[in-house]
């Protein structure tokens, strides 16, 4: 058992750190450290493409599809250096971390050739069409319908909370493709172009004033018959595999961003004298300890060869980081005091800590709420009896 990375990995760290530092202090200095998800979208699209050109877009993918065949250690290192450099949130997180790995796992060679190089090049932004007004935690309750007509799927229904749909080129949609089916049966996983008359996107304003997510209406929206991952009617399997990517390895890169956020709280406490308050000191220590334990939990998970153990650690990881960050949001406000409740200009727009406070209320909701996570941990991790389910 060892803590650190190998010399070869550290050399890799130096290489990516140098490149990222150069970009973030040079051409892309204007988007360094921006806190809000929807700020400077055109510039961040350019940044995605710059990452792609330089081969840093999707380093864990095979070279053949625009990746670098990077090891997990290298992916962790890149994610750490990415955040350390203050590089902005990946606007194509869903394409890179969710759609891409799912296409790699379930796609035909032809589908891989069609989508993966575009994602790797930063030219194709994706969004996730899972949730519906009546299918949130109970995702298997989706009502959006897909039927084959000629050589195409025709899709009707409504998705909701679709993050970044208004900036996306592609959406993956979970839709009911078998008439009369219910629950996880009879669903298909479709890959659809956003730029078509059958798809209408309406941004929804959020708690922090931003509009990152949307309602997505599908009215005779279309995609080719073969624009589907997995077999018709077996989309649930694909959808669940994707959620494992969402809840597992892809969240690791967040840790250095969390480090930055905790450092912002520490800086604020130093600046206004709260760093001397023993209660605040205890809370900052708890946050520091929680962050370190997340890091070593992740390293444990990624170093492990025992897949069952990895699943166990991964199961608890989502609720752990989400709860940690929500608490950090509250701590940031406690440190700022009332000053945190006043914006600096005349817009309802928030700097890092107040924005963290507001935004982090969603961390314990998306990607499976804390309650759903506890059910998963209890049922899959501890083997307890399943929740009784009613007839909807």
């Amino acid at each position, binding site marked *: *058992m060892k803590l650190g990375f190998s010399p070869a990995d550290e050399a890799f760290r130096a290489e990516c750190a140098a490149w990222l530092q150069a970009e973030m202090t040079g051409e892309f200095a204007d988007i360094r450290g921006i806190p809000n998800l929807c700020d400077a979208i055109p510039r961040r699209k350019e940044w995605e493409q710059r990452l792609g050109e330089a081969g840093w877009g999707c380093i864990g993918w095979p070279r053949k599809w625009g990746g670098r065949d990077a090891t997990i250690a290298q992916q962790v290192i890149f994610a750490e250096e990415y955040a350390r450099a203050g590089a902005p949130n990946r606007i194509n997180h869903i394409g890179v971390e969710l759609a891409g790995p799912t296409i790699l796992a379930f796609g035909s060679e032809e589908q891989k050739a069609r989508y993966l190089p575009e994602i790797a090049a930063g030219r194709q932004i994706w969004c996730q069409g899972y949730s519906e007004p009546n299918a949130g935690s109970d995702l298997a309750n989706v009502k959006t319908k897909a039927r084959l007509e000629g050589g195409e799927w025709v899709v009707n229904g409504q998705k909701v909370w679709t993050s970044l749909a208004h900036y996306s080129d592609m959406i993956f949609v979970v839709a009911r493709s078998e008439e009369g089916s219910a629950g996880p049966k009879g669903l298909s996983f479709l890959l659809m172009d956003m730029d078509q008359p059958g798809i209408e996107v309406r941004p929804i304003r959020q708690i922090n004033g931003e509009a990152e997510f949307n309602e997505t209406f599908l009215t005779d929206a279309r995609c080719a018959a073969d624009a589907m991952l997995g077999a018709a009617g077996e989309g649930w399997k694909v959808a669940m595999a994707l959620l494992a990517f969402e809840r597992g390895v892809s969240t690791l890169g967040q840790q250095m961003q969390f480090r930055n956020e905790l450092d912002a709280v520490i800086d604020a406490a130093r600046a206004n004298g709260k*760093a001397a308050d023993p209660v605040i000191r205890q809370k900052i220590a708890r946050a520091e300890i929680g962050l370190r334990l997340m890091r070593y939990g992740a390293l444990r998970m990624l*170093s492990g060869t025992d897949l069952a153990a990895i699943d*166990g650690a991964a199961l608890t990881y989502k609720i752990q980081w989400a709860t940690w960050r929500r608490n950090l949001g509250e701590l940031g406000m406690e440190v700022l005091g009332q000053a945190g409740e006043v914006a600096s200009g005349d817009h309802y727009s928030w700097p890092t800590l107040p924005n963290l406070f507001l935004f982090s209320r969603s961390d314990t909701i998306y990607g499976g709420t804390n309650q759903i*996570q506890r059910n998963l941990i209890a049922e899959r991790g501890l083997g307890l009896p399943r929740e009784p389910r009613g007839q909807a």
Partner: protein
Amino acid sequence: MEFAFTDEQAMIAETVRGFFAENATSERTRKAMAADGIDRELWSSFANELGLAGIGLPEEHGGAGLGMVEMALVAEAAGAQVAALPLLGHVMIGQAIARGGSEAQKAEWLPRLAAGELIATAAWAPKLSVADGRISGTFPFLPHGASADLLLVHSGSEAWIVDLKGAGVSVQAHVTMDQTRPFATATLDGAQGEQLADGDAAIAGALAAGWICLAAEALGGAQATLDRTVAYSKERVQFGRQIGSFQAYKHRLADMMIEIEQARSAVYWAACAVDEGSDEAQVALHSAKAFCADTYFMCAGNMIQLHGGIGFTWEHDAHLFFKRARSIQTLLGDGQWHREQVASAVLGAAA
């Protein structure tokens, strides 16, 4: 990245888990509780058959070699059974001598410690006075103090070992809530102390070993409370259902698992950091001690609640875990103190 057990470490873990599960039974622990809190037969086979008393002690002095990771594996397994063993003082004095003793001191003491011949205890943050190597002071809350042969005390950057059976020493045994690790008060009145050659190294070694030992015991204990409660939740039926199928019940078990997974990272992070001499070692040790102790207490409290009435009885083992958890919280610095050390590392010293 190799933050996973080596094959050898996995084997040690399996061996010690099996050993304690088979031998440190509730029955034997309770027998020891009724006496001085030490299961001597267990201690003897632990030291002599398994050679585990020498873990973390150098091979040239009769130890088993290996480091804090392996020591943590042992303490975790012992903690899972709330074993009645004088492990805490043993690892503290062993590391104090191994790291801060002269060659002669190592040659004299370590083989005897590795053989389990001596029972040791250590004083936390003691107040003492020394004149010509003769030590005076009162040392309360010594774990297994009434049965111990040797006492480790320190002051500033000096450390001594004291023969508790020697002249100028009186020891008062206490009735302690956790009867698997009863406390005693030693009063030294000009007792002869043997000063360790490098006090700073001895103190650092003793504290690191003590904190890891407690954190690892807490981890093992917490996991055991979860495992036992999960098993009970599948047996016990109320309202026509297994109680483990009720969401309010299973969410508490899930919360235990979430904390335990972090506690596991904490113990092995701290142990590795000490073994590697990492810059992070101090923060890791304080984090592990504070976090694991709190986790254990939360889990042991839940164990009682989730067992209902039976969990409140003397007959059931839940109280052994609960009392051990409570005592781990306060031994060698409470959670607030450890978190303040982390805060100092992050924010600078308190104003």
